[in-house]
């Protein structure tokens, strides 16, 4: 059994699910002939033909919005936004139409749509190829968002999203595409339950809440702190919307301390919602201020020197966790 990468897990799951359900189709920019600019959709055009693997014009609003009509007539659409940064032209269709359509029709229609969004910094792409823009969607009722941090969840959350009857934004982290590997048994239908966070590491002193690439930096930080006797409980959110409040509360009720870590700018980032949940629902168990360690309140810079500085790293995360643990 050969270890496969995060992007391989995505590719394999797409193959499997498209084979399984012939109402699925893929639509995106360069997803067909090219197999995706990251090669996540490699081989799908060959396997399923141009009727089901659509190389779309540069029309993000169409890519997202056409899924609503397609879903109504019986399809299970799998749109791809080439870079999460380019989801903003599709914002209108996603937040006003796709996310609300079920509610608006009083439950008549389901919207089984999975929008894949390659996101995140650290890949040398500058402001339009590095954004973490999940927070834009947090106040949109009807939308689900998942963000795998591991190879296994890349497969498991994607399968769960595709099979889900709710519209899901699937955030795949570009920096994880080829940097992590895992053994996934071919043929095993991995499904990761949507709506549940994962305790990636247990510990009793402080809870670190994070997702995506930064999970790995956080785990490194936790290992380092363990040497100093500080045991960090690390929560991998997996689902960003709706957040798994029970799991978060359980952990922080135990440790009494929390640090939320994400790449996006602090102001208005999803760390705010998490800290607010803690301030509201486990206030009496909290023994220290809820800290947020995040990107800077700027756009994402291009030059490598700046980019390296922008991205939170294990050292900074360890320092924040230690400071909170020692409060």
């Amino acid at each position, binding site marked *: 059994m050969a270890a496969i990468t995060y992007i391989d897990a995505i590719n394999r799951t797409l193959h499997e699910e498209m084979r399984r359900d012939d109402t699925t189709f893929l639509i995106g920019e360069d997803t067909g002939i090219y197999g995706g600019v990251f090669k996540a959709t490699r081989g799908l055009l060959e396997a399923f033909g141009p009727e089901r693997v659509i190389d779309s*014009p540069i*029309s993000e*609003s169409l890519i997202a919005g056409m899924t*609503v*009509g*397609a879903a109504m007539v019986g399809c299970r659409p799998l749109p791809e936004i080439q870079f999460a940064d380019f989801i903003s032209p599709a914002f209108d269709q996603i937040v006003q*139409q796709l996310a609300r359509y079920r509610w608006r029709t*009083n439950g008549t229609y389901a919207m089984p749509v999975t929008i894949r969004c390659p996101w995140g910094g650290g890949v040398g792409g500058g402001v339009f190829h590095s954004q973490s823009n999940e927070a834009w969607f947090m106040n949109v*009722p009807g939308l689900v968002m998942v963000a795998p941090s591991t190879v296994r969840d890349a497969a498991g959350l994607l399968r769960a999203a595709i099979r889900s009857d709710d519209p899901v934004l699937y955030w795949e982290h570009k920096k994880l595409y080829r940097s992590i590997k895992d053994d996934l048994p071919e043929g095993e239908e991995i499904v990761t339950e949507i709506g549940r966070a994962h305790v990636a590491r247990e510990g009793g002193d402080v809870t670190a809440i994070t997702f995506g690439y930064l999970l790995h930096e956080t785990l490194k930080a936790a290992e380092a702190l363990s040497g100093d006797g500080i045991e960090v409980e690390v929560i991998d959110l997996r689902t960003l919307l709706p957040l798994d409040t029970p799991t978060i509360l359980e952990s922080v009720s135990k440790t009494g301390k929390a640090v939320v870590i994400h790449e996006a700018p602090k102001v208005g980032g999803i760390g705010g919602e998490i800290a607010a949940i803690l301030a509201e629902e486990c206030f009496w168990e909290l023994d220290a201020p809820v800290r947020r360690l995040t990107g800077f309140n700027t756009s994402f810079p291009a030059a490598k020197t700046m980019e390296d500085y922008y991205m939170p790293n294990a050292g900074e995360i360890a320092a924040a966790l230690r400071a909170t643990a020692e409060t």
Partner: protein
Amino acid sequence: MAEKKTKGKKKTATAEAVTESAAESQETGRTTGEGAAPTGEAKEDFQALQRRREDLALDVTRAFPDKYRISGEMEGCSDAAKIDLLERLVRTRTFDARMRRLFRQGRFEGTYYSQIGQEACDVVIAAQLEKTDFVGPSHRDLGASVGKGIPLTALAAQVYNRVDSPDGGRYTACHYWHPEYWVMQPSTSIMMNWIAATGAAFGFKMLKKKGVAVAFGGDGATAHGDFHEGCNFAGVHRLPIVYIIQNNLWAESLPLSLTTALTDLAHRADAYGFPGVTIDGNDVISVWNTTRKALQRARGGDGPTLIEMKTYRWFGHSDIDPADYRSEDEVEDWTERDPLPRYVAWLMENEVLDEERLEGIRQAIRQEVEQAVEFAEASARPEPEAFLSEVFVHEYPGFDVRAGR
């Protein structure tokens, strides 16, 4: 002009009969008249129509000289179908006029979006569809719903936002839809229906289902980016779709000249590689023949068609809009081009209809409308909390719809 007005005053009993309920809502008379010779336009094919666009002026008086009469033949339309179409048109008109009056009487909240004057544009094509064909209406498409056969009871309940509307009163008044009739719920937000209908057409093709989609939009809506993205995609993939622009010369208060530098919006289709045609949207025969051909194209795998229908909304954008940005002359000229009496007169000339039958239709529909009103008024107002559901299909441990209270 003077002569035109004189003509306008020569109301016939027929015209009055058909439009009575509308006439109740405003003073302007609707008329039929003795007009010029047939233009024969309905018989031309799309190529010819496209070429002819060059000669049409925004001044529809010139393009469609006969205000009062229509002529030609309705291709592939039996007499029974002609009468059925008439019924749908009268049903739409009668319902609409009734709702306007009820709104003025304060019988329901919000506002009312009247379509009076434009009925032919959506009734005629909707009446030709199979039940499982997909309709993507805009905010002014009562006729699409009536034309496709949705019972007036459901539509009235939508106007009243009552529990018996298909969405139980949670969505927006006057935004007619019905899942069983495959009329999608229009978004208030302009052109979302255009994109959704394009997606439905794609879905039909991808799933190898029969089925066509029809999308409706206004002149103003054609300026929106989604108009472009939808049409372009449909052109590339030759989707089974008919796009209809109801060019009523105004987008709320915005005159056509501020929406476009074009004379005829059918030219927008030139950018997408499929035919675009301009027709008199108040001429039932022309609308029938053109939409019929467009539907055949869609069903036959020949791809999309864009049809610009010149038409007019008689009243304000909604019924709280006095619409004083328009000239009285313009309104009068257009109300004289009423699609209904023109069609009635033609049916009578061709002896498909007589006064008695018309009267019977009117009576029956009036009753139907009254029953719908009674139904809506008897329908309960939604429970205050009835909207607290259906956010998601699935349950999620962290989601509580009431968390904020």
